[in-house]
C-alpha cells in the first residue's frame, strides 16, 4: 500500500499513471511475475486516472475533445497488445521501451524553457485547442493543437506500451504532446490523466479474466495510489512547469536504466 501511495503521488504530479514506479516495485521487490505486476499496476492506473481527473475538472485543463479523439488510437493500441501480448518477447519490448524513454528524456531536457501558450486570449484556438487560466502568467491563455497525426500515432504506441508494461502511457504522450503538438504541459498532463483510464480498460478486463489481477494485492495498491494521488495533486498545483519537466526527464532516465538493466 505504501508503494501505491508513492506511485500515486508521483503519478498524479506528472500526469502519469504511477505504474512506472509500481511495476518495478511489485516485480523486482515483491517478486511477483511480470504479468501479475503489470496487471495490478494497470488496475491502479484506472484509479489514478479517475481520481486525478475528478479533482482536475472545472479548470479547463482537461481537453475533452482532444482526449476522446486520441483515445480512439490509444484504446486500439491497448486492445491490439492485450490480445497479442503472448506472442511478443519481454526482452525485445523492454529494450525498445528503455530506448524510447531515454530519447524522450533528452527531448524534455532540451525544451525546458519552451511554453506552448499564447498570451493573447482573443486568438481562435481552433476545433481542438482551448483556453485556460494560467497561474504562472496570471491571465487567460490560448493554445492550438498541431500535428494531430503525430498525437494519434503516439497515443496508439502508448496504448501498446500501457497494455504490455502496466504503465499508463502518459510517459510517452505527455512529452510528445508538449514538444510537438502545441499542447501546454498542464493541459497535456490533465488530458493524459483522463485518457489513461480508458487506455487501461482496453486491456485490464482481459488480464482480469486471465487471472493476473490478484484481488487483495490490487485492492491494497489501489487504496495506496488513491491516497498518494491526493499528495501529488497538492504538490502539482504549487510546482512550476519547468520544474515538472525536469522531474519528468529524471524519472524517464531512471526508468530507462531500470528497463535496460532488466533486459540484459
Amino acid at each position, binding site marked *: 500500500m505504501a508503494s501505491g501511495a508513492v506511485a500515486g503521488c508521483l503519478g498524479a504530479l506528472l500526469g502519469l499513471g504511477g505504474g512506472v514506479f509500481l511495476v518495478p516495485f511489485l516485480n523486482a521487490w515483491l517478486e511477483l511475475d511480470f504479468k501479475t505486476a503489470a496487471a495490478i499496476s494497470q*488496475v491502479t492506473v*484506472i*484509479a489514478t*486516472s*479517475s*481520481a486525478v*481527473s*475528478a*479533482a*482536475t*475538472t*472545472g479548470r*479547463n485543463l*482537461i481537453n*475533452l*475533445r482532444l482526449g*476522446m*479523439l486520441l*483515445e*480512439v488510437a490509444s*484504446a*486500439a493500441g*491497448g*486492445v491490439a497488445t*492485450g*490480445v497479442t501480448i503472448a506472442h511478443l518477447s519481454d526482452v525485445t519490448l523492454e529494450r525498445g521501451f528503455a530506448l524510447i524513454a531515454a530519447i524522450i528524456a533528452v527531448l524534455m531536457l532540451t525544451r525546458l524553457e519552451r511554453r506552448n501558450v499564447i498570451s493573447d486570449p482573443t486568438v*481562435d*484556438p*481552433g*476545433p*481542438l*485547442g*482551448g*483556453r485556460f487560466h494560467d497561474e504562472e502568467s496570471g491571465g487567460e491563455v490560448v493554445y492550438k493543437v498541431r500535428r494531430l497525426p503525430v498525437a494519434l500515432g503516439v497515443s496508439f504506441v502508448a496504448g501498446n506500451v500501457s497494455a504490455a508494461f502496466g504503465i499508463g502511457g502518459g510517459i510517452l504522450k505527455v512529452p510528445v504532446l508538449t514538444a510537438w503538438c502545441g499542447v501546454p504541459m498542464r493541459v497535456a498532463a490533465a488530458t493524459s490523466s483522463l485518457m489513461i*483510464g*480508458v487506455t*487501461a*480498460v*482496453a*486491456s*485490464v*478486463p*482481459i488480464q*482480469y*479474466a*486471465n487471472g493476473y*489481477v490478484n*484481488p*487483495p494485492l*490490487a*485492492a*491494497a495498491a*489501489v*487504496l495506496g495510489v*488513491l491516497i498518494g494521488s491526493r499528495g501529488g495533486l497538492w504538490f502539482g498545483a504549487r510546482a512550476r512547469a519547468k520544474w515538472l519537466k525536469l522531474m519528468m526527464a529524471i524519472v524517464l532516465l531512471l526508468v530507462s536504466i531500470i528497463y535496460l538493466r532488466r533486459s540484459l
Partner: protein
Amino acid sequence: MTADPAFLERLETRLGRLLATGVIASAAFLAIGLGFWFPNPQSAAALWLLNAGLLVLMAIPIMRVVVSFTEYVSTRQWFFAGVTIVVLVELSVTVLVALSRRH
C-alpha cells in the same frame, strides 16, 4: 466545429461527478473487502467485495465514454459522437474477449 465552452464545461462537471462517485464506491468496496480479508483470506464475502470493487473501478472509464456519447448525441455534435462510439466499440471488443476467456 468550434468548441462551445459552456457545453464543454457542463460535460466536464458531469464527468467529474461521475468519476468521483465511481472512485468512492470502488474504494469503499475495496477497503471493506480488505478489512474482511485480513483476518480470514478465505472469506467469501471478502472476495466478493474485492471483486465488486475491481469491477466498479473498471466500469468507471467505460461509463465516462457512455456519458460523453449521450451528451454529444443530445447536442448533435456528430463528429465527436462518432469518435466516442469508435472508442466504445474498441472497449466492447476487450470486454467480449475477456468474457470469452473467463471460466
